[in-house]
């Protein structure tokens, strides 16, 4: 290999890092893709597609509705992996896709309501995201929903644009 090729190789190999910065990290909306659907009048299915290298804390998943007359039961979260954390001990985390079934009681005549999903997760690269709060509009006859415009703590400040969930 000539010296020029060697140097070019070094330059190209390192160059991405010069503009990578935070670009190497996904936005929380990309890392933890949320979708949900009201599958019957008494059950919501919430799904997080978690990108490789990222995880969500099981005990930080919280759901709420607006109007509050749409009553939620206790979410049925699947079994989680146990993560041995240096500081928190054994914590339960999710990786990959996770499906949560949330019992719901719809008052008669409810056409739509807002589900607020709160989550918190980290990247294996060594950062944690501030708690995310995303909102979805659900209702009978509405298909799988994706987060509405300004859900998360950061979004509401106009920082990171929400990622559309397919």
């Amino acid at each position, binding site marked *: 290999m000539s*010296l*020029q090729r060697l*140097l*070019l190789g*070094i*330059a190209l*190999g*390192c*160059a*991405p*890092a*010069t*503009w*990578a*910065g*935070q*670009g*190497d*990290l996904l*936005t*929380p909306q990309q890392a933890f893709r949320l979708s949900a659907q009201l599958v019957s009048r008494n059950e919501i299915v919430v799904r997080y597609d978690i990108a490789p290298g990222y995880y969500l804390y099981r005990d*930080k998943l919280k759901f709420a509705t607006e109007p509050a007359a749409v009553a939620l039961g206790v979410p049925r979260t699947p079994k989680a992996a146990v993560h041995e*954390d*240096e*500081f*928190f001990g054994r914590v339960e985390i999710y990786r990959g896709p996770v499906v949560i079934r949330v019992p719901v009681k719809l008052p008669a005549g409810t056409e739509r309501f807002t589900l607020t999903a709160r989550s*918190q997760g*980290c*990247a294996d*690269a*060594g*950062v*944690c*995201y*501030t708690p995310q709060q995303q909102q979805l509009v659900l209702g009978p006859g509405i298909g799988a929903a994706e987060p509405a415009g300004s859900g998360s*703590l*950061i979004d*509401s*400040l106009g*920082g*990171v644009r929400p990622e559309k969930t397919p």
Partner: protein
Amino acid sequence: MKRGTKIFLFIAVALAALAAGLALHPLNRGPVVVTPAGLLETPLESIDGGKQPLGTWKGKVLVVNFWATWCAPCRKEIPEFIRMQERLKDQGLQFVGIAIDEKDKVVPYIREVGINYPVLVGELDAVEMSRSLGNELGALPFTVVVDRSGKVVHTILGATSEASLEPILKALF
């Protein structure tokens, strides 16, 4: 251009790219280093009650650490910050923690690990300050080095260490 000059230029550019690549290792530094207007004037809640701006410590070499009790990588670096604060305080070093967290969780943690520098707490206001400093993802920990004149000179996303921080600080003492 002479062949020798071309080779020289090529080597210079390649070495500059290499140096920049190493210096800006991903997660080791935010993409931009900016000094947002009003950085030193924006008041945040102090754990003793009342509000304090970062300008309280202007004139010191300031290391501002955004953290939270729920953030494991943050907990990892804090004991190193405590040691550095003790060791380098006479040279003008001042750490300030900004916890994006609930005060009820922050106060017991400060006592538990013996944080020996001021801690402010915030939610949206602190997230906004961190974002204005280049932390677009709102990820933690995020650490910012401010020189004695109040100018931001370095930002670090992800956990840092005594060994990484000290050379940056020494140039500012």
